[in-house]
């Protein structure tokens, strides 16, 4: 599987994402700098976590307007898979590729811990290795993961089965306990939890591997 990871100034989970992609898919991803307006021909583009541009103004706002993101949007429109984790999810909502917005956690505090997620939809390129309704345990680490969308958008997301994961015990105040969503075409997924941090036993579990395995499956 050919992949690319976009790196913004102060991305900080870029290495973790690169390592996870390489370990699980066997192929080293390309690295794309935010100022690059060209992205190699790949099957998947990953937007890593971190604090792009310091999370200043709004999380993901400045990264969303970078030259690399223009190209990501064009690729996404062509159907290339785009996967955003944490800050990457925030960037995806800021570009409008995914609906809604990620607001400050209800507690106003940064939260880093393991949470249980229920896999609500396994019919996606990112979740086909899991079982419908499976509960997986994945770390979150964010200050702004409180998902907001207006009632109509929420209804649409729910009716179309586009809420891919839900928190079992909501850590941030997200509406409908939403942890991750996908677009209508099912090629763009955004989620707050960090599967790339949980791919080997030493890290405390392997529940995150399924994401990368799913991506491999969906290409075959």
């Amino acid at each position, binding site marked *: 599987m050919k992949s690319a990871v976009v790196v913004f100034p102060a991305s900080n989970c870029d290495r973790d994402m690169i390592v996870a992609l390489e370990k699980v898919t066997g192929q080293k991803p390309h690295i794309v700098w935010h100022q690059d307006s060209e992205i190699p021909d790949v099957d998947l583009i990953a937007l890593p976590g971190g604090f792009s541009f310091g999370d200043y*103004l709004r999380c993901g706002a400045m990264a969303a307007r970078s030259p690399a993101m223009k190209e990501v949007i064009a690729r996404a429109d062509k159907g290339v898979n785009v996967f955003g984790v944490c800050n990457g999810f925030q960037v995806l909502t800021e570009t409008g590729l995914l609906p809604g917005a990620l607001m*400050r956690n209800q507690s*106003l505090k940064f939260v880093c811990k393991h949470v249980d997620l229920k896999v609500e939809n396994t019919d996606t390129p990112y979740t086909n290795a899991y079982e419908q309704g499976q509960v997986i345990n994945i770390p979150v680490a964010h200050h702004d993961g409180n998902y907001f969308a207006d009632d109509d958008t929420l209804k649409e997301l729910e009716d179309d089965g586009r809420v891919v994961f839900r928190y079992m015990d909501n850590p941030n105040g997200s509406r409908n306990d939403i942890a991750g969503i996908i677009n209508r075409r099912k090629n763009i997924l955004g989620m707050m939890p960090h599967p790339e941090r949980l791919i080997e036993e030493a890290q405390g579990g392997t529940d995150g591997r399924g994401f990368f395995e799913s991506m491999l499956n969906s290409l075959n």
Partner: protein
Amino acid sequence: MKARVHVTLKNGVLDPQGKAIQHALAALGFDGVDDVRQGKFIELDLAETDKVKAEAAVDEMCRKLLSNTVIENYDIEID
């Protein structure tokens, strides 16, 4: 010229910061605070000297970067 931009959350968008401030004020003994909303206040120094042009430019900045129109409104004053 100077531009002053207020970016505020749209009606109906939950405001965790405002809520937290309201709670904290109550905890400090300030009664009778019925609602609190927190927004951003951005001041820009512009080289532009024409007010109409400045306003148009700042409006574009607001749409392109300074606000997220999914959840926020903005308001511009130029002087």
